[in-house]
């Protein structure tokens, strides 16, 4: 039994006493009976896309690899799971702009008054990806975004960023700004959310993650911290092997 939760373990005794028939038995041997926690957000599992259509997902994966290209030491944005991260974020409260002030009127203001768009992040992605696909097929010799060379993809992204490329029915600049933030957040956020796969981004920079106790290290000045990172979802070598 590998899928029980730590909270159940901690309250197990109480369950036996109060619940009567809820008593359960398990055998612990060879590994810690530890599972990623209960009260944190559910760990994202890669698999079916929740928000993106498969063609949209392929576009975003390719963009993630331009924003964070793979290199011999560290995966790029795609293999780090940044598109999975964005997909799950867009399918959730972030994608729906939940909790933000969404009342009209929506009036364009000056820069220092902040964004005033009525569109949610999910709507921005959907319309911009469609418009970008249209732009590529009509302007890039019939090729779709993913068929462009890396160099050409970079040029198009720079064009969106600077506003030099205008999309039909979508604001390419706003889209790119959000994309850049989301890809880089997915890369450095806890792997719980689908990006930063195997803590690859943390290993790259030397961030120990959710370690939470450095009392022994405060006074060890100018020394490289030697321990591998740990995430809220644990560390691969902590987790029970899937049977």
């Amino acid at each position, binding site marked *: 039994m590998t899928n029980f939760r*730590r909270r159940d373990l901690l309250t197990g005794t109480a369950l036996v006493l109060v619940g009567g028939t809820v008593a359960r038995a398990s055998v612990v041997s060879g590994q810690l009976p530890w599972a990623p*926690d209960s*009260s*944190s*957000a559910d760990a994202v599992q890669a698999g079916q896309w929740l928000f993106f259509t498969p063609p949209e997902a392929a576009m975003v994966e390719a963009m993630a690899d*331009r*924003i*964070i*290209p793979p*290199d011999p030491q*560290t995966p790029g944005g795609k293999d780090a799971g940044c598109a999975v991260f964005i997909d799950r974020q867009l399918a959730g409260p*972030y994608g729906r702009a*939940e*909790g*933000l*002030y*969404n*009342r009209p*009127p929506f*009036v364009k*203001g*000056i*820069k*220092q*008054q*902040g*964004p*005033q768009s009525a569109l949610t992040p999910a709507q921005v992605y959907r319309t911009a990806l469609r418009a970008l696909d249209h732009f590529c097929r009509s302007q890039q010799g019939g090729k779709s975004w993913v068929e462009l060379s890396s160099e050409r993809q970079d040029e198009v*992204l720079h064009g969106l*960023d600077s506003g030099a490329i205008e999309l039909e029915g979508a604001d390419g600049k706003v889209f790119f700004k959000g994309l*850049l933030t989301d890809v*880089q*957040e997915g890369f*450095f*956020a*806890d792997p*719980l*959310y689908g990006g930063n796969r195997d803590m690859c*981004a943390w290993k*790259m*920079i*030397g*961030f*120990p*993650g*959710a*370690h*939470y*106790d*450095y*009392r022994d*290290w*405060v*006074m060890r*000045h*100018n*020394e*490289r*911290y030697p321990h591998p990172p740990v995430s*809220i979802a644990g560390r691969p070598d902590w987790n029970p092997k899937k049977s």
Partner: protein
Amino acid sequence: MTRKLPPKDVVIIGLGWTGSILANELTDEGLDVVAIERGPWRNTASDFPPNHAQDELRYHIRHELFLQPAQTTFTFRNKMDQSALPIRNWGAFMPPNGVGGGGVHWNAETWRFLPSDFVLRTHLTQRYGAHFLPPDTTIQDWGVSYQELEPHYDRFEYLCGTSGTAGNVNGQIQEGGNPFEGPRARAYPNPAQQQPFGPTLFAKGARELGYKPFPQPSGNMSQAYVNPLNVRLGPCTYCGFCEWFGCANYSKASPQTTILPVLVRKSNFMVRDQCEVTRINTDASGKRATGVTFVDASGQEWEQPAELVILSAYTIFNVQLLMLSGIGAPYDPVANKGVIGRNFTHQTISDVESFFDKSKFIFNPFIASGAIGMCIDEFNGDNFDHGPHGFIGGGYMGQVQSNGRPIGTMPLPPDTPRWGAKWKQATRDNYLSALKPGTGVHGSMYSYRDVYLDLDPTYRDRFSRPLMRITMDFHENELKQNAFLTDRFAEIFHAMGADQVVKKYRKGPYDITDYQTTHLCGGAVMGADPRTSAINRYLQSWDVSNLFVMGASAFPQNAGYNPTGTVAALAYWSAAAIRTHYLKNPGPLVHV
């Protein structure tokens, strides 16, 4: 239809630091107290336990512990002739929400203001002459002195277990502390926290330049501590998840870790959470509060009658409730009359990012507490001669980097592209060997006639109440102050041996999307004259004598320190006046 609850002695609006302090003081007096809190009850064990408290995306980026703009927000403009637009997502500041208030998410930087800060206009006029002040500034004296507040600062520091090195005990300057601080009656309750490499190197550089660096006073425990209420706090583990986060280790001073465990056990106290007070009710004369009206989570409206009303919400919400309740004259910047909304201020902060040789410097920026850091105070308040410089005010500065969380804290050299292979390589090359204090220069913001709060004519909240409108811009005085301080700050990083020092001056116009601390101040200020203050020196409303207004809304202008120590000292000072004077003879404590 509004339903009426049985009367209470005291109703408290908002259960953050000041609400908790007042509730505890007044229940000790035997009064029957109810606190009404807009946000949820929050517990360490259930809301931010150590198995997921360290989640940068959830707590910092997605703002889990904060008020949601959908609940209510503000509108913003720089100038009076512009149209204000709503803040749709938080940027320049982050209003707290829930039991514990800002005490849950703060860094626990626990400062006292300078003695001269409390008599600012008098002091500056005496030293430099009235002509030296910016012509449109509305700075004024507080009506209370540092000496009067000293025992109340002391109470808060001992409640919190503040870790620090005293600089001035009864007039005796102490080695290693802040030599500029006002005299304190005794040392901090806990020794200073240990300092990681970055702050230690900063202190060395500062000493070489002739400054006197000292550890930032910290509400993160340097050791286990039992406070005077017999509540226990654990030692800080330097986890680097402090500001924006609740502390899972019970080692950051908060209402949860210092007062609430005692308060909630008292039979004469109760809190209603997820209930929002929409109005302070007054009788026909308008001079006496009869209680409050609030709306519960289901939308039901209730009236809670009470003999005494304590308004202890966040700065702007204090001002909003006074305005919507018709208490006090609203400020009119054109006529320069009225008090509610007047003297609104924030903080003038800036930063320096510095890049060191990665083969020689490993800073491990993730090893930090919220209030970590070594600071200097040579350029705060009036600790230096402003005569040659042509501005007033100042701030502390220090290597006070509270974290190395990679989404928010990723200093990169200025020539780095924002994305692509070179960006990736730069994150790899600089993460461990760069310093980014965050609020390295923590400057004052003084008050001006055209920086204020009023009701927005267009945008409304979910109860159809007008949003508060912020009109704010930087004035030349603050920008000059910041340029001078940022230059001095950068010199220290050069002395530390940095290869590249990047000065991030504060520049106008004020930008609502750029985080600049949550230290909003003023709008319902204290003072000696009811024509220029909303509340008297005991935080009692001039207009409604059974209403006391806590919080940084009382600051006539903001000093160059984090506000919480002074906010809490004022709360204890006010509570003492209520206990010793007001309850014996309810009515105005100051007659003019």
